[in-house]
């Protein structure tokens, strides 16, 4: 059957199992949108307020499900508006296919209206990208894009399709869904070496990252920790991968990690890293990071081994398979002294937390907000965040009940990510969705409230409003002598009125009682609901491992 390029694009998306796409029409994708109209029974298109929102929505869709998220934008400004969203997906290894239209081949290179070399622009922020020169390569290029996006270490792929290719026609035969290219299995000798290192270890620490977040290894990791008497910590991206209802789980480590998790990682004699890349936010100063520790790193990406930290053993390949084989090979052992030491650290951590709670003077503290969220949130709730203090509090306090319930921009730290991502993750899961944001982040892309209202997405928006850019302010307080340069917002925005103007609803919460009432109300609202949650501008995210510092420099209280 002969189809146009635009029809082939949509047919190939359908063939690849895509049921939802996010995007925004424009001159050079008008044919694609015409084809979308034709296939609207088979593929749902969510029209966002801005292309950036579409990219974040595709990303959120993927994080919550593991499926490849898809976004569409027109040439020029449409395409460049995707850039931040694509980079966000790249830094967190999120599978995504971004489709852009471009001017026809005959106008390429002539600085035509809305012409941009988007493959050039996105080269360093995509896993791979394509400019489809002729129609005969279109379908296979798209299939290849899906294969690359989801295979190995996942990531975003951009496919740029000039208008003449969308208009041309050619014979099209649908094919099956392209399967992930299987990762190589690690050599048995390496598994044996890993097991031998674990057998020798007296202070083992299992370190789980984003690479394990979607694997569903959680229970097995806990069982393995019990077998070898180890503790478990995670990176920011590894949150929600591990069941939290066990006392071996110490939570996130790193710059704003839990004290016991960061310190015990540094005191461990062995770290078993599962899908972690030892980012600078996780390690602090690498020259001082875990100096007495042997590291085993399981990762699908060969370039991650020895990139940020020197490791004793790098196992490149199928992480899931490597972990299971190591777990099987290792015998049971017990490390009572290690567990005692960790217990001591946890007691210290509890003391800091009690001190902090006692020192709190505000009517509503972040901790109280999260206590309510933990108590009142429904099962399977997807927690989405923006970027800043609220994000770190979420990472520290929220209890996740299953994997893929934490949707947050880790590597790129994209303020304005949250609302689009929440729209995407809700579209994918239809599960209860809570967006935790701040007044700074929310201000960046709040236009997507229009999208949430239009598509009836009942996202609960907990807007932690402190009137300042809290994270930068915290640094200014600690390291810049309280010179609050451009971090005091002093805006007069009435967020409740704003929510209502968009067709959403909202209220103000200033105390724990008010917040609990508001949160319950928001869950029942059945539409986007903004809780303007007033917190103090001088709340800190603690502990804090200062930039360039080590665990010896952890700040646990404000003077």
């Amino acid at each position, binding site marked *: 059957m002969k189809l146009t390029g635009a029809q082939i694009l949509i047919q190939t998306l359908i063939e690849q199992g895509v049921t939802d796409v996010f995007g925004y029409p424009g001159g050079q994708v008008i044919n694609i949108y015409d084809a979308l109209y034709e296939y609207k029974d088979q593929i749902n298109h969510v029209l966002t307020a801005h292309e950036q929102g579409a990219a974040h929505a595709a990303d959120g869709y993927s994080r919550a499900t593991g499926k490849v998220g898809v976004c569409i934008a027109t040439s020029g400004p449409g395409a460049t508006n995707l850039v931040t969203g694509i980079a966000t997906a790249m830094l967190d290894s999120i599978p995504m296919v971004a489709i852009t239209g471009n001017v026809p081949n005959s106008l390429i290179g002539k600085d035509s209206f809305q012409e941009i070399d988007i493959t050039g622009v996105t*080269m*360093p922020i995509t896993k791979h990208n394509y400019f489809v020169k002729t129609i005969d390569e279109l379908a296979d290029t798209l299939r290849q894009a899906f294969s*690359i996006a989801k295979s190995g270490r996942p990531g975003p792929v951009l496919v740029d399709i000039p208008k003449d290719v969308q208009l041309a026609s050619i014979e099209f035969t649908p094919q099956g869904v392209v399967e992930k290219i299987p990762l190589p299995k690690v050599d048995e000798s390496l598994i044996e070496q890993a097991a031998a290192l674990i057998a020798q270890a007296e202070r083992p620490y299992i370190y789980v990252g984003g690479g394990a977040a979607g694997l569903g290894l959680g229970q097995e990791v806990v069982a393995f920790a019990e077998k070898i008497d180890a503790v478990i910590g995670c990176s920011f991206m590894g949150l929600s991968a591990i069941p939290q209802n066990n006392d071996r789980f110490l939570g996130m480590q790193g710059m704003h990690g839990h004290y016991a998790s960061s310190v015990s990682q540094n005191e461990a004699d062995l770290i078993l890293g599962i899908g972690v890349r030892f980012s600078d936010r996780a390690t602090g100063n690498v020259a001082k990071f875990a100096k007495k520790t042997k590291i085993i790193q399981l990762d699908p990406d*060969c*370039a991650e081994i020895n990139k940020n930290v020197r490791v004793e053993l790098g196992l490149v390949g199928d992480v899931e398979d490597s972990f299971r084989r190591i777990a099987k090979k290792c015998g049971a052992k017990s490390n009572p002294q290690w567990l005692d030491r960790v217990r001591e650290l946890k007691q210290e951590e509890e003391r800091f937390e009690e001190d902090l709670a006692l020192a709190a003077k505000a009517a509503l503290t972040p901790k109280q907000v999260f206590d309510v969220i933990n108590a009142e949130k429904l099962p399977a709730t997807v927690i989405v965040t923006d970027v800043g203090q609220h994000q770190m509090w979420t990472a520290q306090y929220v209890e996740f009940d299953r994997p893929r319930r934490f949707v947050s921009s880790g590597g790129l730290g994209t303020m304005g990510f949250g609302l689009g991502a929440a729209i995407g993750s809700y579209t994918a899961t239809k599960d209860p969705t809570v967006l935790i944001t701040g007044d700074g982040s929310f201000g960046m892309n709040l236009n997507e409230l229009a999208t949430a209202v239009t598509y009836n997405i009942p996202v609960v928006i907990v807007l932690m409003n402190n009137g300042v850019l809290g994270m930068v302010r915290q640094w200014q307080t600690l390291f810049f002598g309280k010179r609050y340069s451009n971090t005091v917002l002093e805006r007069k925005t009435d967020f409740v009125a704003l929510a209502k103007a968009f067709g959403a609803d909202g209220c103000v919460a200033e105390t724990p009682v008010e917040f609990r009432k508001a949160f319950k109300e928001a869950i029942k609202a059945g539409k986007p609901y903004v809780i303007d949650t007033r917190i103090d501008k001088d709340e800190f995210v603690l502990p804090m491992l200062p930039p360039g510092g080590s665990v010896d420099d952890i700040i646990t209280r404000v003077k």
Partner: protein
Amino acid sequence: MENKKFILAVYVENKAGVLTRVTAMFTRRGFNIDTITAGETEDKGYTRITLCLRGDEYVREQVISQLKKLYVVKKVELIEDDPIQRELMLIKVRNSSEHRNDIMAAVDVFRASVIDYSAEGMCIEVTGNPSKIDAFVKLMKPFDILEMCRTGIVALDRGETTLLSK
């Protein structure tokens, strides 16, 4: 760690924009390239890029791993142990009666050849190991170098092994 010179041979798909993808990786990761050459291979579908860089073991390991991740790269190989390496240079020097004999003597000793000759200048072609080229440039310096260009290194392993068979 020691900063050593090393040579990489990279087999890439012969497609538009491939060289950009390879060099963009170096910009993105902050690695410097000393010389880069690209050209046809025995297989029409592939281009061979020869890169000459300096760096310690970390740089060497990272550059190779990061190159391997590029979808257009078929094979990356560190060319080690005294490979056959050649570079070509065209150099234009001032032709003066005072220095002509010295220049011609150098051309003779270096087995270079004069490929253009005019009253005011001559153009010399030199091929050889990069260190030989360096030595020739040094020799020409006092004679007023007008212009020069070097191709960068091309290299092959000795013996019958090929990059793709390794």
